[in-house]
């Protein structure tokens, strides 16, 4: 469903993404982790067609993002960490706009939109201008509108930012259900607990390279570390200094787990 074939991105003389190859299967929940400036967002930008790769290809459900952009985007949904919404529209109007952009039939739109509105508890906000909504509610509107056309591939950057625990749970449940129904989820996050809980496989990007890919268990084996994903992550990204420093500080909380 998602194929990254030897993807490279250079910013001048800086190599931001360095020969990344990856295949994420249909219905797989894939989480990508990495330190700041590791190349996660750049990879997502190439995957969603926002920027052109220096070399290599990105495929969405078999469509080359650069060669068949419209076909790829019809099968794709992308929710960035701070999604764009038309401020003067209401959430319902925005949902309608999105449905029309994806050429959904009126009846189909109504049925799907009502279900999503109910699921994301948006009923009370449907007629209010988006500009007056909180960040969490805006995030829910963005996720609901992205799911409207039943995308085959769902790319989301930091989905839990601004969400309260209840709605964070709703988002996790909805994404997991959809992935079980066949939607491929590509999630980028710094919240290791989210990746640990949700992902079928996890990829770790460090300094532009995909340094490890696998299930939580496989990552543990690769890193030679036991316990939480945090240990595998820190070990694999070779941030020894940070690891030592954080191990000292995080020991009591780790002990509580």
């Amino acid at each position: 469903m998602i194929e990254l074939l030897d993807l490279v991105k250079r910013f001048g003389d800086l190599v931001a993404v360095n020969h990344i190859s990856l295949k994420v299967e249909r219905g797989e929940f894939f989480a990508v982790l990495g330190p700041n400036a590791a190349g996660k967002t750049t990879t997502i930008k190439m995957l969603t067609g926002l920027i052109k790769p220096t070399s290599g290809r990105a495929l969405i459900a078999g469509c080359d993002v650069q060669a068949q952009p419209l076909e790829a985007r019809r099968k794709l949904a992308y929710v960035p960490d701070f999604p764009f919404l038309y401020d003067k529209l209401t959430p319902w109007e925005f949902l309608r706009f999105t449905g029309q952009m994806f050429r959904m039939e009126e009846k189909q739109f109504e049925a799907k939109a009502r279900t999503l509105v109910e699921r994301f508890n948006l009923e009370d906000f449907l007629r209010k201008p988006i500009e007056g909504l909180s960040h969490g509610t805006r995030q829910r509107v963005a996720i609901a509108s992205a799911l409207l056309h039943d995308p085959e591939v769902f790319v989301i950057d930091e989905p839990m930012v601004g969400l309260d625990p209840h709605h964070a749970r709703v988002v996790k449940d909805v994404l997991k259900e959809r992935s079980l129904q066949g939607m491929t989820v590509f999630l980028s996050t710094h919240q290791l607990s989210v990746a640990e809980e949700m992902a079928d496989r996890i990829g770790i990007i460090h300094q532009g390279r995909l340094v490890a890919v696998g299930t939580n268990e496989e990552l543990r084996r690769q890193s030679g570390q036991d316990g939480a994903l945090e240990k595998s992550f820190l070990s694999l990204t070779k941030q020894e200094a940070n690891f030592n420093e954080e191990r000292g500080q995080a020991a009591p909380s780790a002990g509580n787990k």
Partner: protein
Amino acid sequence: MNGGGSKFFSPLWLLLRTNGLQAWRRLLSFRDQSRLLSAAIMVFVAGYLWLAYLLFYKAMRFVSYFPGLGEVLVERMLFLLFAFLFTMLMLSNLIISFTNLFRNRESTYLLTMPVSTDTIFRWKFIESSILASWAFVFLIAPLVTAFGHSQKAPWHFYPITVTLILLFIVLPTVAGSWFAVLLARFMDRRAFQVAAITVAIGAICYVAFGTAPEQMQDDFEDTRVLGLMDRLLKRTDFAQNPVLPSYWLSSGVLRWLEGAFGSAVFFMLVLLSNVLFFGFLSFTRLGKPFYEAASVVQSRGSLFGHWEWFRKWRDFKGQRRYEIGFLERAFAIFKGWLPGDVRAMLVKDIRVFWRDTTQWGQTLMLFGLLGVYIINLRHFSQQLTAPFWIHVVSYLNLGASALNLATLTTRFVYPQFSLEGRRVWIVGMAPIGLPKVVTAKYWLTTIASLGVTLGLTVLSCHMLQLPWERTVMFALAITVMTLTLNGLAVGLGVLYPNFREENPSKIVSGFGGTFCLVLSFLYIVASVVLLAMGTPWPGASDVDLGKVLFGWVGFGLLSVLLGWVPLKLGLKRAAHFEY
């Protein structure tokens, strides 16, 4: 948006409808904020249209009285007007298209939607052309109407002229958007700054050394007037270059007025064919270059990165990463007067301004116009000998300086507080406190703008060879006006903040920005009138002390009301600001 039963709309139509609805609701929220103020703004707009019409009408009648020359002069003025309009529209379109295409969240959002890049470009092209052109059309509307009336044009002259202008504005939009795509594709911020400064210096040098007017000799004054006029107008010949779109527009308008309909239709068809050709190219061929440029903008390394000397210099700079920056060292001079937190704030503001290319472009345009004005003062003053005209021109110069300042304060000072954006809490929660931040912004902008306005006013007085006491009077007046206009802009900026918007020109186009501009203009007009009343004219035998007192006290009170009061209210609001 609520209508049901629709089949599939084209994406362009959906974008037009959605953004149209957004604009309409923005307008309604504008009205809902204060009906009284909205009505005041409407009255101001109507007043401008009426006054501008009267002024242009009288000026055109005056010029057309010159026997044999009036027609030539009016015709040349029209050619010049549209030629300058073309240039200004092109620059305006370049800046707005660049921001709209490459620094706009909607563009990024649309690039992930099932919309072709051609459609995105088409929508942004239409949006940019409206944003860049509406103000120019609004400004020239009374001029064109006055021209028609002064020439006793038939009723059909007006719809034809409107059609010609609407066709015409497509061409600078095409040029502006093409340049914007090229600029984004091939130039980074530093390269743009270097190029823009070079062009600005070149333009100022050209105006300074290449456009000196023909000197009039006494024996020419009464004889061979047409020949003399021809020489004097020689330098404006460029406006009549037949390859310029402004030439086709001017010729179309003039030929229609003369009743040469066939010739007018010819020029209209020339415009139409160019609009169709270049419009078609833009609508069908620029989607891909736009996408490539958008990708490059987000992927840019340094333009100079492939030069070894540049890489060495950058490495050298990198080794000195903990060194204090130039601005901090410059501001360290004021250590005794300014506390460290205020200096940090000022350095931050200057750096942010310097590094924002779009701010830069517009600043250059405004200062470029100012530069042309200053340089041309020397030519203007040579023709002035009568004390009456010197007096009138000195006040007009004061008004012009203040109007330039009002444009600057509304465009750059008013959005300063809003530009803190979602990060306002960083400065708000810092020990410095928001009121101090606002005060620092006020003094920074006031001192910076005072340098320009005071210099301009003193220079104008010097050119007019005014006595020193009048120079001091004008310097005092412009200082008070600078303090007031900055106080108004800073104060209203805090009272009507917009933290959602990151584009300063969009912040300015909101309610507070428009209100600030209207109040600034009203203040300037009232101040110039009051000061003219409060200053005895040269050679006046009896000085009416009551009038003098009324003028100066009125000016002082007005300045306090529109400068000090908004600033105080702004500071009060800042002290109790909720994040």
